[in-house]
């Protein structure tokens, strides 16, 4: 687990046996070119978002999505900021995301630790499979009763979304944490206990810090889910003033639908944090996907 190959790791074999074949060099150049060309399909929608956001309203409606902004204009951002009440939306999104990330890491880590250290007890062993069973219950299946129950319990707000989002992340996170805990030698814990540490201390001082790489992976997936999700907040949060950023973008489908510079500025402000976070945490995002599938 700890030695899991990072997807970015080079394949050692490419270095050997190759210099003999100059033809391969040519192929690799065309391969690079081809992949660069393919990457345009990824970058084009993002480029359009950025360039539209900086256009004037006049230029944005002229029909050419691919032109550069001329002149460069930030009015779109100013209006988007006011129309979507961006500061409120941002605060809600940050609250929901931070809450989901913290709750997911915390609950999944302690639960996984309890399960793995008491595997021989039926309650703990069965809890593992019980929690994992939720992987087979997608949100749409339980959405209607959840909307009702959260409404009745006064949880039809961002707090309710934090609770539900955390619970939907739990299966996957417990799966990753338990797999990782298996790789930590028990001797380490026993020596801490001989030194007089309680279970509580052993976990927080020794195990939880060791779990850090897995916590990073679990946290990033909770972050991406909570930050980007539309379906759950749009259905659970009943007060439009408390909506998250992705849900607020609906505004531009009903009203202001021709102020493209405003809507794209708004889209950009809602997307950017996730992209920036990804750029800083690429390694964990990539490893997480692989582990999620391979451990599965």
């Amino acid at each position, binding site marked *: 687990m700890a030695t899991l190959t990072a997807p970015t790791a080079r394949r050692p074999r490419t270095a050997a046996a190759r210099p003999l074949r100059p033809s391969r060099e040519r192929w*690799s150049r065309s391969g690079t070119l081809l992949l660069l060309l393919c990457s345009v399909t990824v970058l084009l929608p993002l480029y359009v978002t950025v360039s539209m956001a900086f256009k004037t309203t006049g230029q944005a409606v002229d029909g050419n999505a691919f032109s550069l902004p001329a002149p460069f204009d930030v009015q779109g951002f100013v209006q988007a900021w006011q129309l979507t009440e961006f500061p409120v939306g941002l605060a809600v999104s940050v609250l929901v995301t931070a809450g989901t990330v913290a709750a997911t890491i915390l609950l999944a880590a302690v639960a996984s630790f309890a399960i793995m250290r008491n595997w021989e007890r039926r309650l703990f062993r069965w809890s593992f499979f019980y929690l994992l069973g939720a*992987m087979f219950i*997608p949100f*749409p*299946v339980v*959405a209607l009763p959840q909307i009702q129950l959260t409404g009745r319990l006064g949880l039809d707000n961002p707090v309710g979304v934090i609770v539900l989002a955390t619970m939907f992340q739990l299966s*996957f996170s417990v799966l990753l944490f338990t797999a990782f805990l298996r790789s930590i030698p028990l001797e380490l814990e026993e020596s801490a206990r001989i030194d007089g540490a309680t279970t509580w201390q052993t976990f927080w001082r020794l195990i939880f810090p060791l779990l850090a790489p897995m916590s990073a992976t679990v946290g990033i997936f909770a972050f991406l889910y909570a930050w980007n999700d539309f379906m759950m907040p749009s259905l659970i949060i009943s007060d439009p003033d408390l909506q998250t950023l992705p849900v607020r973008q609906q505004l531009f*489908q009903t009203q202001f639908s021709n102020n493209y510079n405003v809507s794209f500025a708004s889209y950009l402000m809602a997307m950017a944090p996730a992209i920036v976070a990804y750029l800083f945490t690429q390694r964990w995002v990539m490893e997480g996907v692989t582990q999620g*599938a391979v451990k599965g």
Partner: protein
Amino acid sequence: MSLLTTTAVPAPAAARPAPRGTRRTEPIYYLFLLPSLVLFTLAIPVPAIVGIFFSFTNSVGIGDWDFVGLTNYAVAFTDPAILRSYLFTFGFSLVTVVLVNVVAFLLAVGLTSRIRLKVGLRAVFVIPMVVSGIIIAYVFNFLFSNSLPAAGQAVGIPFLETSLLANPDLAWLAIVVVTAWQAVPGTLLIYIAGLLAIPGDVYEAAEIDGATRSQRLARITLPLMAGYVVINVILGFKNFLNAYDIIVGLTNGGPGTATRSIAMTIITGFNGGDYAYQMANATIFFVVTVLIAFLQLSVTRGRNSL
């Protein structure tokens, strides 16, 4: 992301021996486990049971209700709106899963071969995974309704001259494209991991025996990657069956109800007074999901080569 929440149950590690003889479970372990167990039970299994219960009633979400037995199910199985949403969702999922896997596999082969800018390219291809589905759907919505028709007119391709999204027969294509755009990275990363796990000497031996590049791809890479293909196809298919955000952003189920997914149909029960009826639909959908999950389990257990 939700790609990950659908993986199968792992074979648990061999039970660890209880350290040092028989011991009682320390109370602290219950404190660690119970919050998750209680919250989880309240958040997912309880609503699921409540929903299944109400699927046998005529509840509209509030007020009085009566038991109506299997009426909701009987009606649901012949309801053209529900049947159409299943047909659309399964068709769309099948096409998307094929497209995503073909594209991701080819990209993975490219990204693990001898190319320049490997790290940078890989980083770029993963970006769609971290972008909000609804927002990128809004961006594509603009491109499909404005830029693509403009390009179609300029080049003179008749069927592109009007917006794809306004055409009941073609709108699903736009949904396939955007869903695939977002789903390729997760699939791609799994394929890259698989390709990196194939030992290099296998290829060298084949090369010495005179195998061409395409022979090596067909006779070595593909068979060795079969397990990963199965995983990706099942995970992808299960995800696409839940399609919601991207469709809302592109067509909102339209034109008419041509692109309304199962999830969107279920949600109409929230506002449409069809609460109990759509819960029956959700229960049917749940059974379908479980059947696919069992298929996944049996297939992945069968090949623990992964």
